């Protein structure tokens, strides 16, 4: 049975999509059967993996609204062990359209159910909001992975996110776990970044990954080439950091 991990933080620009794409790819390189679900109307995970949008509209939107089966919206990627369910701008309407459904918070969970047997990991890239789509992803997930920008306001908004996680645990999804907190965009040279790291580690202890994603030009360039960092520049510090994260992630899975 696959494990569903939601990459979420309602703050924008904290490295959610970069993490969803490159963690999914790194797990796939480790030959773990992985599915990346793009649940952000901007579709950046979709283009970042190099998937050319097709106008046959086989995307997460069709699956959510029951216009297609989950299997029909799956697409292969350049990686043998990685598939994707892409997003496209139609998804903007989904927030509103899903309101008419009963059990509207569980639609994604229901749609992913038939796929659970085929994948070891299902990674969901959320939009920067706590709207119905993100709630759906947290209701479907076994765990949430929270990317946190190593900057002054890093912790801002985290309280609200953790409160939301608590609410979801109490109401929609008691099994929801915190997979980990990932420090991203770290500039090790600045005192401030090191202070932020210290503060986050003091506050959250072992929830925080040892692996840190550095600020890295190659990493920021890679989406514009439609390539995950492993294919764009395998030797960059960004690529190495995500490989290390995948290693740490997999080690954590092995723990009881």
């Amino acid at each position: 049975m696959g494990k569903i991990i939601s990459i979420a933080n309602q703050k924008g620009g904290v490295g959610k999509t970069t993490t969803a794409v490159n963690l999914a790819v790194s797990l796939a390189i480790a030959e773990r059967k992985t599915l990346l679900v793009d649940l952000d109307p901007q579709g950046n995970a979709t283009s970042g993996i190099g998937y050319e949008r097709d106008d046959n509209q086989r995307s997460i939107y069709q699956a959510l609204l029951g216009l297609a089966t989950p299997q029909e919206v799956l697409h292969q990627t350049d990686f043998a062990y990685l598939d994707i369910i892409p997003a496209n701008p139609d998804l903007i309407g989904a927030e509103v359209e899903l309101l008419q459904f009963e059990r509207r918070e569980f639609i994604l969970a229901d749609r992913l159910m038939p796929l659970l047997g085929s994948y070891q990991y299902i990674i969901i890239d959320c939009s920067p909001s706590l709207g119905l789509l993100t709630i759906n992803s947290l209701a479907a997930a076994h765990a949430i992975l929270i990317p946190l920008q190593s900057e002054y306001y890093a912790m801002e908004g985290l309280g609200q996110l953790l409160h939301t996680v608590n609410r979801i645990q109490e109401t929609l999804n008691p099994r929801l776990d915190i997979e980990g907190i990932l420090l991203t965009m770290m500039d090790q040279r600045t005192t401030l970044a090191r202070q932020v790291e210290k503060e986050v580690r003091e506050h959250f202890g072992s929830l925080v990954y040892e692996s840190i994603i550095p600020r890295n030009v190659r990493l920021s360039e890679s989406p514009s080439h439609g390539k995950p960092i492993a294919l764009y520049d395998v030797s960059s510090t960004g690529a190495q950091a995500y490989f290390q994260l995948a290693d740490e992630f997999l080690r954590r899975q092995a723990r009881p």
Partner: protein
Amino acid sequence: MNNVAPDNLRRLLIDGSHQLDIHLDPAHQEAFMAYLTALQRWNRAYNLTAIKDGQKIICRHFLDSLSFSPFLSGISGSVLDLGSGAGFPGLPLALLLPAIRFLLVEARQKKTLFLQHVTRILGLKNVEILHLHLHKGNGSTEFKIPLAALVSRAVSVPDDVFPVAGEVLAPGGLVLLSSTASSREKIMEALSLHENLRLEDIKKVTIPFLEQQRYMIRIIRV
């Protein structure tokens, strides 16, 4: 055995290569140490080789790969390493023999990405990596042929090696297979089915610090 100081590992590499009559200058040594570090780091997450211990990697992968080099003297042109895995024997040979172009073919993506990474960090300009499953029928379309030689370690000699050799080697081209006593027989059996390949000779090769006897099988494309 796990936490051997890098200095000792370097010593092991230098001593071993001396036994093979190969001189590694300091730049070579640095490169091999960087290769070792990268392989051990990637092995943690990506499990590229069954052998993970530093000393064993040096003996069974680095020195074993270097043992091919005397047999490649006089080769000019491109050499194909079929089923290169984590780069053996192709990458150590490419380090040592910059005048020869090496084509590393590997079907598993985690390994080709690793090969790209190592090629980059070692600054190797004479290496090309191909992510594909090479088999009879597609060899001649995937790269510029004919090639001067094909190398492979018998521990990982795929069934496709002879059909591919027949397709991609120039007449007079060389197939070099390193084998153990037990795999040697299987290889000879498979070879007998290929009329365009002729056994040249089999030489005993001693890999430093390794008890098991190895044989270098030389086959010529007729």
